[in-house]
C-alpha cells in the first residue's frame, strides 16, 4: 500500500474548470488515504507543469501519481513519461478522465460533473495505492518489414525502407505492380505518365538487394504479432516458366481463343486468357487460369508455358507490417445517371483508359466523340447512400483529364456538371486553365440532382444550374463521364486477418489523424495510401513514406519493449482444468508441471493482456496485472462512494 501520492487536477484552460469546480475536487480528495499533495493546474500537459511534477516527485519522494485531466488516449503516455523522468516506475501512474467523461459529457450539470469528478479521482487514487512497479517485456523485433500492396504508396515505401537498410517483402495480390497509378496516363502535376513512374519504381525495386517482390501473392493468415509477425502467403503461379520476348508474346496472344473483359482497361476492351499490358511490370505475362480453356494453342507456339506449376504457400516473417492496399473505384449502380442503361455512359477511370487507347480521334463504340459531359461526385458526398465523404482526388482528376482531352483531340467540348469544384491548393490553377480554355461548368446541389436521359436517340443531361439563377439547362453530349469516387476495397480479407478497425467511412482508421496518422491500434501495423482514405498521388506517397519511417523505427533497433500488462496465474489456486487454454485467442497459455501438480502458465511475449481467460477460471486463479480483483474492486468501492 502506498502512502505518498501526488494528485494533479487540470483546468485544461477552462475545458474542465468551466464546468467542474476543480478546487472543490482538490479539497475533496486531499485528505484521502495516502494523498501527500494535491494541486490544481492550468495545463497539466504543459512543459512547466510536467517539470513541476518531476520536482514534486523527486523532492517529496512520492510513490504514486494521479493526473485528472483529459482522456488517457491523449496523455497517458505523457504522464507516464513524467514519472519515468522522476525515477518513478511509470505503472505507478493512474489517469483520471474528467474531461471527455466529466466536464464535457456533463456540461449541462455542473454540480453533477463536479461530484463525478471527485469520485473518479478517488477511484484513481484507490487504484494507484495498489499499483505495482512493472518492467516492460523486451522482445526481439525482426529487422524486416512486410508491405502489403505494391501500388505507388507500397512501392515507394519499400524503396525507402531498402535505402535505410531494412529488408522488405513487398506482397502484391495482382500479378503486376503499380496498382492504380500504372493505369493512368499523364498525371497532375509534373505531366509524367503513371506508367513512367511505375516503371522507374519497379526498376529500383528490382535492383534492390533488400526487397523481395512477391506478385500474385496473397496473405492468408498471420500467426505472430509486433516484432515477430509470421504471415502465410499464398503465391499463385503465372504458368509461365521463363521470361520471353515481345515477339513470342504477340504470337501467343494471337493464338489464344479466349476473350474476356480487360480489368486493366476497366473493361472498355477485352484481353486474352494470356496477357500482359505494355505498361505492366514485371514484364512477364500470366495465364488467367480461371478463364483459360486449356485448349493448348499457346503451348503449340511457345515452349515456356507450363500448366503443371502449382500454387504454393510460404511463410514470411517481419517485425512490422505496412498495409497499403489501395482503393476500389466506385462502380455506379445500374441506372445511376444512366450507367449500364444508356450507351455512352462510362466512368472516369474507364474514360482515362479510353483516351489513352485512342490515338488520332476520340472514338467510343466506333463513334467520334465531340462533346463530353462530366458528372461529378458520383459515389461521393451521397446524401442517401453510405458514402458521405468527399473523394478528394476526383475534381482535379476530371479537370486534368478534360484538359488532356482538349490537347490531344481537336474540337472537343467539355461540360462539367459539378457540386462545387474542390481543386484545393495549387490544383486551383488547373481549374483556372480549364475555364479559361472554354470548358463549361454547371453546378447543382444534392437536393436537386441532375438527370441523364435519352431523347430521340441522343443523350440529354439536364441540370438546374445554380450559377444561372437555377435555370434548367441541358446539354446533348456524345459521351457522359461519371466522375466516380474512391471507395474502400470490397475485399476485406486484410482487415479480417489483422483485425484492423475501420472508421465510419469504412476506410482503415489511424490512431489519431494528427498525432499518429499512419499508425493503427494494432501494434506494429502501419497504414499508408488510399486504404486509409482518399488521396492523390503525392499525398499517398507522403503517407507511404511516413509509414515507412514509423515501421522502420519499430524494427530498426532489433528489440521492442512491450506493455507488461498480461495475465498472471496464481499457481497455488490453479487446478488445471484447461478452460483458460481454450479461452485464449493467442495460444499464450500452456499446461506446465509445478512439482507434482499440473498448472497453467502464461507465455509472456505472446499474451496480449486481453483478459479473456479471467472469467472462465472456476477457481479465480487468474488476474490481469493492473486489473486485479483488488484494484478493480477498490475502484468500485470509491466510485460507489463507499471506499
Amino acid at each position, binding site marked *: 500500500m502506498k502512502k505518498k501520492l501526488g494528485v494533479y487536477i487540470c483546468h485544461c484552460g477552462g475545458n474542465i474548470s468551466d464546468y467542474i469546480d476543480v478546487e472543490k475536487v482538490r479539497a475533496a480528495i486531499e485528505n484521502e488515504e495516502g494523498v501527500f499533495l494535491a494541486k490544481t493546474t492550468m495545463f497539466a500537459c504543459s512543459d512547466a507543469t510536467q517539470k513541476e511534477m518531476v520536482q514534486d516527485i523527486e523532492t517529496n519522494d512520492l510513490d504514486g501519481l494521479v493526473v485528472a485531466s483529459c*482522456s488517457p*488516449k491523449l496523455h497517458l503516455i505523457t504522464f507516464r513519461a513524467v514519472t519515468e523522468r522522476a525515477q518513478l516506475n511509470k505503472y505507478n501512474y493512474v489517469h483520471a*478522465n474528467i*474531461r*471527455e*467523461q*466529466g*466536464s*464535457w*459529457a*456533463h*456540461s*449541462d*450539470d455542473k454540480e*453533477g*460533473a463536479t*461530484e*463525478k469528478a471527485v*469520485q*473518479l479521482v478517488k*477511484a484513481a487514487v484507490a487504484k494507484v495505492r495498489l499499483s505495482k512497479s512493472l518492467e516492460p517485456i523486451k522482445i526481439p523485433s525482426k529487422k524486416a518489414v512486410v508491405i502489403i500492396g505494391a501500388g505507388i504508396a507500397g512501392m515507394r515505401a519499400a524503396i525507402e525502407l531498402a535505402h535505410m537498410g531494412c529488408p522488405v517483402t513487398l506482397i502484391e495480390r495482382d500479378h503486376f505492380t503499380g496498382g492504380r497509378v500504372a493505369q493512368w496516363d499523364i498525371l497532375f502535376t509534373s505531366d509524367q505518365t503513371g506508367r513512367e513512374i511505375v516503371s522507374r519504381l519497379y526498376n529500383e525495386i528490382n535492383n534492390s538487394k533488400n526487397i523481395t517482390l512477391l506478385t500474385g501473392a496473397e496473405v492468408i493468415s498471420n500467426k505472430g504479432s509486433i516484432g515477430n509477425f509470421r504471415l502465410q502467403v499464398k503465391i499463385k503461379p503465372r504458368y509461365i516458366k521463363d521470361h520471353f520476348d515481345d515477339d513470342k508474346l504477340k504470337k501467343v496472344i494471337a493464338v489464344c481463343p479466349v476473350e474476356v473483359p480487360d480489368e486493366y482497361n476497366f473493361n472498355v476492351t477485352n484481353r486474352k486468357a494470356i496477357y500482359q499490358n505494355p505498361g505492366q511490370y514485371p514484364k512477364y505475362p500470366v495465364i488467367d487460369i480461371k478463364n483459360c480453356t486449356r485448349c493448348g494453342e499457346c503451348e503449340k507456339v511457345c515452349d515456356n508455358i507450363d500448366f503443371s506449376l502449382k500454387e504454393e504457400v510460404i511463410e514470411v516473417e517481419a517485425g512490422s507490417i505496412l498495409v497499403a492496399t489501395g482503393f476500389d473505384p466506385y462502380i455506379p449502380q445500374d441506372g445511376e445517371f444512366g450507367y449500364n442503361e444508356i450507351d455512352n455512359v462510362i466512368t472516369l477511370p474507364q474514360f482515362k483508359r479510353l483516351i489513352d487507347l485512342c490515338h488520332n480521334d476520340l472514338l467510343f463504340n466506333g463513334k467520334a466523340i465531340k462533346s463530353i459531359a462530366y458528372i461529378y461526385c458520383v459515389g461521393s458526398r451521397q446524401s442517401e447512400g453510405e458514402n458521405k465523404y468527399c473523394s478528394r482526388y476526383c475534381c482535379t482528376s476530371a479537370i486534368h483529364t478534360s484538359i488532356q482531352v482538349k490537347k490531344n483531340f481537336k474540337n472537343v467540348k467539355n461540360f462539367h456538371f459539378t457540386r462545387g469544384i474542390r481543386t484545393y491548393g495549387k490544383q486551383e490553377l488547373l481549374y483556372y486553365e480549364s475555364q479559361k480554355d472554354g470548358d463549361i461548368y454547371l453546378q447543382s446541389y444534392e437536393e436537386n440532382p441532375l438527370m441523364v436521359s435519352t431523347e430521340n436517340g441522343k443523350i440529354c443531361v439536364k441540370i438546374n444550374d445554380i450559377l444561372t439563377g437555377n435555370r434548367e439547362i441541358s446539354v446533348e453530349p456524345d459521351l457522359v463521364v461519371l466522375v466516380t469516387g474512391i471507395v474502400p476495397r470490397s475485399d476485406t480479407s486484410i482487415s479480417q486477418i489483422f*483485425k484492423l*478497425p475501420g*472508421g*465510419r467511412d469504412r476506410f482503415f*482508421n489511424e490512431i489519431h489523424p494528427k498525432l499518429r496518422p499512419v499508425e493503427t*491500434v*494494432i501494434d506494429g501495423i502501419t497504414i499508408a495510401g488510399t486504404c486509409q482514405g482518399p488521396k492523390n498521388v503525392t499525398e499517398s506517397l507522403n503517407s507511404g513514406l511516413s509509414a515507412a519511417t514509423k515501421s522502420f523505427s519499430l524494427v530498426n533497433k532489433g528489440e521492442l519493449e512491450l506493455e507488461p*500488462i498480461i495475465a498472471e496465474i496464481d499457481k497455488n489456486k490453479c487446478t488445471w482444468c484447461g478452460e483458460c487454454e481454450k*479461452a485464449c*485467442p*493467442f495460444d499464450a497459455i500452456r499446461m506446465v508441471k509445478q512439482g507434482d501438480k499440473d498448472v497453467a502458465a502464461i507465455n509472456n511475449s505472446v499474451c*496480449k*493482456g*486481453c*483478459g*479473456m*481467460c*479471467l*472469467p*472462465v477460471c472456476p477457481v*479465480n486463479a487468474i488476474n*490481469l496485472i493492473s*486489473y486485479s*480483483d483488488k484494484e*478493480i*474492486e477498490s*475502484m*468500485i*468501492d470509491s*466510485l*460507489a*462512494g*463507499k471506499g
Partner: protein
Amino acid sequence: MNRRSASILVFSTEKISDPAIDMAGLLKLHYPPTVYTISVPCSSGIKPRWILHAYNKGFDGVFIAADGSDCTFGESCTEKTGNIVSKTHEIMKEKKLDPARLRMAAICSVCSESFVKQIKSFNEYLLKTIKS
C-alpha cells in the same frame, strides 16, 4: 427515494468503447453524471464477481459496453462477453437480484450516440424500479 438519476457502473474497453464514450463527451451528448466508467482491455475479460461487487456497494446498474465484432483480440469476444453476462444473470437470479440491472450492448469506437441512448434508457428503467 427521489433521485434524478440512477448510479450506473460502466465497463468500457480501452480501444473500442471507451473512445466512443469519450466522443460522447466531445460531442456534448449529455447523460447522467452518476454514470461511472472503469475501462478494461477487453469486455470478455470482465469477471462476474466485479459486477456483483458493484451491486453490493450500492450501484443500481452495471452496463457492459462491449467490443462487439470490432474487438482487436479476436472474433470470439462477442460470444465470450455474452457468456459472462448470462453467467452473471444466473448468479443474480440466485441472489434475488433483478437480472435487468445488468445490461450489455456492443459499442463501437464511434457509437457515441448509441451509447448515450442505451444509458438513458437503462437509467429510466433503473429509476422506475428504484421507485417502485
